[in-house]
């Protein structure tokens, strides 16, 4: 295992244990900035860890970022690891997001679906869902991005437990989802929520379950335009942006539809590289450039949230 977060290899995919060990190293190296919260346990009783980056205060307005909710989208967990180190480095060098940390906290859940992630590394690299078993079905797992209480069970998800977009027996049936729901409700002061997926190179905002535009559509569209411009400025990676339902397809029970309906105005989903050469099997050498460019887009969203407190 790497001796420190400086020697950690960010240009490679890592096992669940290596990522857990990275988190512990980051906390140990930065006790005044980083802490590790356990917000729940997965179906197979793995801890659901969230890194908290805070320079003080209590219940400050906060930004939430999660990666890996679909376990096979490995470039997202790998980017999450890079983001964690970037936040620490920015703070140490008093640049980038350091100014955000003066007034806001950042929560980062790197392995949002640990059971699925472990399964991709041991049994089936193409596994997407959770690993829950629900009575009456031989098939395993629920799509954790169809299990939220926002248009739950509507068109854009499946009631068939054997399909990849199975919404589950009821909203929040998955502990990986329920834990975030409970955390968001108990924290009560999250101002921006970004859930990161791959692939397709898209920046999306609500809604996915209905064609009704969100009240803040104009503002979210403008933020997306700026964020995509910043992202593309680094390597020219082309992104499209828009609401979920108009940009990709109808999807019900999705994460950011629920967070937006909770009042978290700045709710976004990224679909990272690529647009279909490698798809979920993106080569490790693209991890760092993907994380670097995504970070520029994320920063636009975070800075907008900081400067437009509501």
């Amino acid at each position, binding site marked *: 295992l790497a001796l420190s977060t400086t020697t950690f*290899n960010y*240009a*490679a*995919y*890592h*096992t669940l244990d*290596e990522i857990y060990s990275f988190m512990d190293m980051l906390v140990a190296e930065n006790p005044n900035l980083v802490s590790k919260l356990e917000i729940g346990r997965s179906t197979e009783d793995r801890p659901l860890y969230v890194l908290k980056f805070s320079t003080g205060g209590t219940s400050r307005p906060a930004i939430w970022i999660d990666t890996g909710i679909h376990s096979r989208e490995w470039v997202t967990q790998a980017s999450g690891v890079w983001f964690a180190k970037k936040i620490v480095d920015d703070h140490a060098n008093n640049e980038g997001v350091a100014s955000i940390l003066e007034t806001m906290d950042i929560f980062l859940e790197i392995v949002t679906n640990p059971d699925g992630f472990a399964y991709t590394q*041991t*049994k*089936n*690299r*193409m596994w997407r869902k959770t690993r829950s078993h629900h009575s009456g079905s031989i098939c395993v797992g629920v799509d954790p991005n169809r299990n939220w209480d926002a248009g739950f069970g509507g068109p854009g998800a499946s009631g068939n437990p*054997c399909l*990849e*977009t199975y919404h589950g027996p009821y909203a929040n049936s998955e502990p990986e989802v329920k834990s975030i729901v409970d955390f968001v409700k108990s924290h009560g002061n999250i101002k921006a929520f970004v859930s990161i997926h791959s*692939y*397709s190179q898209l920046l999306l905002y609500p809604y996915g379950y209905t064609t009704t535009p969100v009240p803040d559509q104009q503002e979210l569209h403008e933020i997306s335009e700026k964020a995509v411009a910043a992202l593309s400025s680094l390597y020219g990676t082309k992104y499209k942006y828009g609401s979920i339902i108009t940009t*990709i*397809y109808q999807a019900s029970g999705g994460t950011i539809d629920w967070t937006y309906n909770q009042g978290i105005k700045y709710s976004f989903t990224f679909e990272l590289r690529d*647009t*279909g*050469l*490698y*798809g*979920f*099997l993106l*080569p*490790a050498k693209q991890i760092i450039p993907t994380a670097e460019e995504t970070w520029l887009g994320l920063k636009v969203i975070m800075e907008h949230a900081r400067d437009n407190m509501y």
Partner: protein
Amino acid sequence: TETFVGHQVLRIVPSSDEELQKVQELQDLEHLKLDFWLSPRGLGYPVDIRVPFPSLQSVKAHLEASGVPYSIMIEDVQALVDEEEMEMLRSSR
């Protein structure tokens, strides 16, 4: 452990409603065990399907018989999975 030897990822970009419908028909054929990496969403949008080797012939026949053009995005999924695994081993070493 699940292996993907001979699995291919096909890319289809439906350019007509008929083509879109032919692709959507595939979604209902559960016995083919197709894994839609990108689901059908509309004309001009790519649909990526991981096709297990045993289903490859019939899927390609279905598409060709319907005149639906497709390309092969990934020739052999297992080869990429092996490469990725090798990379991880190398890095951890």
